[in-house]
Structure formats: C-alpha cells, structure tokens
C-alpha cells in the first residue's frame, strides 16, 4: 500500500498548478482580509485593545479550515481521475486489496491536508509576525498539529462522501469551485458567523466547518484574548467569541471540548454514511469495474 500512497503523494505535489489551485480558497480569504476585511473588523471592535493582534490569528484559524477542506478535496480528486482513466484497473492488478486501495487514497488525502495546513500556518504566522509583530507561539504547535490531523481526517471523509457520487473528471472542476467558494463562508472567514442572519447561521452549524474554525481560533487566540479582554467585562469577551465564531453559539457558547465533540460526531456520522454507501455499491466509492 505504501507504493500507492507514495505515488498519490507524488501526483499531488508534482502538480504545482494543482497545489496552487487547491490553496486558492485559502489565498482568497487571506488576500480579502489584507485588502479590506481586517480594516472593517478593526473599526467594528475599536473598543477592544490590540484588535489587530486578535484578528490575525482569527483569520489564520478560519483559513486553516478552508485549507483542510480544499486540499483534501484536491488530493482525493485523484481517485475520480484514476477511475475515469482506468488507472484503478491497473492498480487493481497489483497485490493491494480493494480496501487497501481505498485506504491509500484516504491516507494520502489526510497527509496532504496536514502538510498543507501546517505550511499555511507557518506562512501566515510568519507573515503576521513580520508585518504586525504578532506573536508566533511555538508552545501551541502540538495542539495545532493535533487539530490539523483531526480536520484532515474529517474533511477527507466528508469529501470522500461527496466524490462518491462524482463519475466524471469534468464534474470535479465544478465541485472544486463550489467547495472552494463555499468553504470561506461556512468556515466563517469572509463574514463573521455572528453577523449573519439566524437562518444562515443555523445552516452553517449543520456543517463541521464553523466548529473546525472555532477550535483553531480557540487555540490560536487564547493568549491574546486573555490579554485584550483583561480590563473589559466578561460579557464583552463572550459576545466577541460568539460574533467572531471563536465558540459556536448553541443558545449558549460552546466550550472548546464541546466544539471538538460535535466536530468528531460529524466525522463519525459521515464515516457511517461512507461505510453504508460502500456496502450498497462498491462502484460508487471507488471502482467502476
């Protein structure tokens, strides 16, 4: 199986334009933020000290969620391409079992997701450290790594479910565009979740995306939140957290652990769907043979 994982990884990383476009959603959010979003938000939260230092890690948290969604989708797309180009027929002749083939695509996608999230984290973290003198806290790296693995897993399974119904490479491009654009909204990056109408907020909450952003933001912003809100009433902090999607609001603000529990429940539910579909039709998931 290592042979197939190795081949899939090479296929992803050798395709420079593919890597670039899989980061498109993340880059759009980053550029939009630099261009005008940050200024808008700083103005709205003028009463909070060091707003910029709060918003930089806030953006990183959301952008990493987008990265997890789009890069795992891009990596997993190889499965559809291989199915259409009859590559799977060739791989099926080797000693790797059918389950092994499926597993190899999932492992590759997870690996790509983790690597790309960490790269994006390092790039954005370094950028804000240079430009805004934001703190680059190495102490939280183990948590960031753990979160990147968890997000990669969940979004890989999510995209696997999505791609189960895709037969043509042509459709892949369209799905990539839709997911790339939608992920920015669902992760609450383009517009903070708390500023949207309730219906829209509820719609977002039935996807794993806002919980993913919330977990990342919780870890990334914790130190700065304590600093900035030390002299402000607690109600201000909880309002900021709700509006900005640092903790998802379910009548009351969820804790980090609750966000994680819900996120993992999503992963479990989607895994179950994937499993059931693969039981019903092997063809849907992986092989057209």
């Amino acid at each position, binding site marked *: *199986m*290592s*042979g*197939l994982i*190795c*081949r899939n990884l*090479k*296929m992803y990383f*050798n*395709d420079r334009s593919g890597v670039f476009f899989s980061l498109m959603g993340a880059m759009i959010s980053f550029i939009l933020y630099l261009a005008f979003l940050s200024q808008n938000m700083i103005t709205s939260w003028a009463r909070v000290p060091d707003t910029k230092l709060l918003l930089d890690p806030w953006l990183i948290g959301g952008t990493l969620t987008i990265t997890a969604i789009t890069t795992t989708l891009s990596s997993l797309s190889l499965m559809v391409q291989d199915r259409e*180009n*009859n*590559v799977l*027929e*060739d*791989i*099926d*002749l*080797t*000693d*790797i*079992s059918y389950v092994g083939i499926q597993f190899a695509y999932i492992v590759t996608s997870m690996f790509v997701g983790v690597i790309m999230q960490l790269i994006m984290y390092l790039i954005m973290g370094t950028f804000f450290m240079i430009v805004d003198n934001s703190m680059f806290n190495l102490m939280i790296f183990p948590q960031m790594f753990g979160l990147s693995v968890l997000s990669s897993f969940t979004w890989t399974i999510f995209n696997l479910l999505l791609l189960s119904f895709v037969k043509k490479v042509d459709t892949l491009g369209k799905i990539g565009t839709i997911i790339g654009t939608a992920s920015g909204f669902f992760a609450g990056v383009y517009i903070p979740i708390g500023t949207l109408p309730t219906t829209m907020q509820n719609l977002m909450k039935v996807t794993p995306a806002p919980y993913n952003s919330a977990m990342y933001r919780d870890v990334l912003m914790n130190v700065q939140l304590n600093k900035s809100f030390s002299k402000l009433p607690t109600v201000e902090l909880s309002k900021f957290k709700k509006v900005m999607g640092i903790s998802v609001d379910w009548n009351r603000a969820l804790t980090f652990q609750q966000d994680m529990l819900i996120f993992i429940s999503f992963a479990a539910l989607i895994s179950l769907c994937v499993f059931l579909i693969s039981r019903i039709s092997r063809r849907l998931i992986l092989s057209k*043979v």
Partner: protein
Amino acid sequence: MKLLQATSLTKKFKNKTAVNGINLTINKGDFVAFLGPNGAGKSTTINMLTGIIQPTSGMIDFYGKSTTNRDYRNKIGVVFQSSVLDNNLSVKDNIMTRAKMYHKPTQIQLLINKFDLESIWKQKYGSLSGGQRRRVDIARALVNSPELLFLDEPSTGLDVRTRTAIWTVLNQLRRDTGLTIVLTTHYLEETQTADYVYIIDQGKIIAENTVNKLQKQYTQNILTLYYPNGESKKLSVNDKDHAIEILSKNSQAISDFEYRPGTMNDVFMNLTGKEIH
C-alpha cells in the same frame, strides 16, 4: 500444457451482446493472437480474461483458479489499450511505485536493460514519444514477472521500426522465460508469427488455428497477370505447378506477373466478406 481455458464466455451490456459464447484455450509458452476489426469484442474478451470485467456467463480457468483470485492477478501482466501510467511522474517513479505495490521482489534492472529505459529513466512519462511510452507500458506490465502477458492493441499508432523493436524484445522474453503472450490486434502482420490465431467478429470466434492452417484452409494463392495494355487479371491458384502452367500458356501475352500466397487479410476477407481495416 494448458494454461488458461475459457468456456462459453459471454458478456452482455444492457441489450448488446459484446461477446457471445467464446471457447478458447491458451497453452503455456504460446503466442496467441486475437484478430478482428474494431468493435469485434477483442478487448471485452481480454478484459474478462484479466478479471477486469466479469462475464455474464461462462467459465475461465487458470490452473483451477478463477480470475477474481489474487494469485491469478499476480501471475498476469496487462498492457492496456490506452496508457494507464502517470504523465506527471518520471518513468522511474511510475515503474518504482508500481513495483512497490507487489509483495514479491522485482527485477527492475533487467527491464531497464531489455527495454532500453536507461536514457529516459528520469524523463516525465508525459514527455515521451508514443514508442517510448509503449516500452514503459510493457515494462510496467512485466514488473511482477508474470507468466501470462496480455497486450491489448499494443502497437496502434506506432511506426514499423518501433513495432519491430518491441516485438524483438517480447520474442526474446518468450525464449528466455517461457512467457505466454495473448495479443489483440488488427494489424495482420503481427499475427503472422503467432502460434495460434483466433479470428473474432461480432462477438464470436469465426475461425481458429495456426497461421499456416488458416491460410491453407481459407485462402488460395493469388496469381496476378499484367498485360502490355495496362490491364491485369487476378487468378486463384491451388499451388505453384498450377501457377507455372498458367504462366507458360500466357507467356507471350503478359508483360509481367505477381504470385503470392494467401495472407491473413485474405483469410479474414474470405471469412467475413470484408477487409479488416
């Protein structure tokens, strides 16, 4: 010795029968050719023999194993009609990653030497010429040192020189390792060296035998007489004596002549009433 046997092999796609009750036997070490026009059912047959698609009915037996058995898959190599290797990866990456997908040790260096891959080893597969790609495709199919190699129209679009080079290596492999080869083709000359030929048309085997016997059975030798006024006349003759007799009688009247034995194309034409191309 019998290596692979298929009995009453049938494949139906919705309401179309692609392959209809084919029986065939492939002996160890033989070079067997499936000859037929496009759409005759050759590729469908190969796909069933390699286990890529399952027959609607019928049996395939390989040393008592079925085609879905992994041991069977391990003993075969397949060169697909369209390439299945990755354009973005180098020849080395393509071959080495495939080699890693097998448990048994592979003899990559041997393949590099045999198929002359050293010079293109680090080049991207997508940048290679058609002939070079085919060499890599065949090398990939031989990575697991198979006993039985299936080639599905391997030389379509290749020039004569490349085709000859590929067949030289394959014939050498047959001599050295006893490799059994099953080929589908619509190039008649490729079947001339086959040990056994199955002629397929409209999903059925319409004739099968060795090349010599097929030619004897289904064709006659052709004698063409050319006259000084530019006209010509084609005659079917049984043997050389008959040809000499005709030539002696017409020696004054003709300006030239051509004598050739029947070809696989004649066999095909006589069987189906149409040319293969």
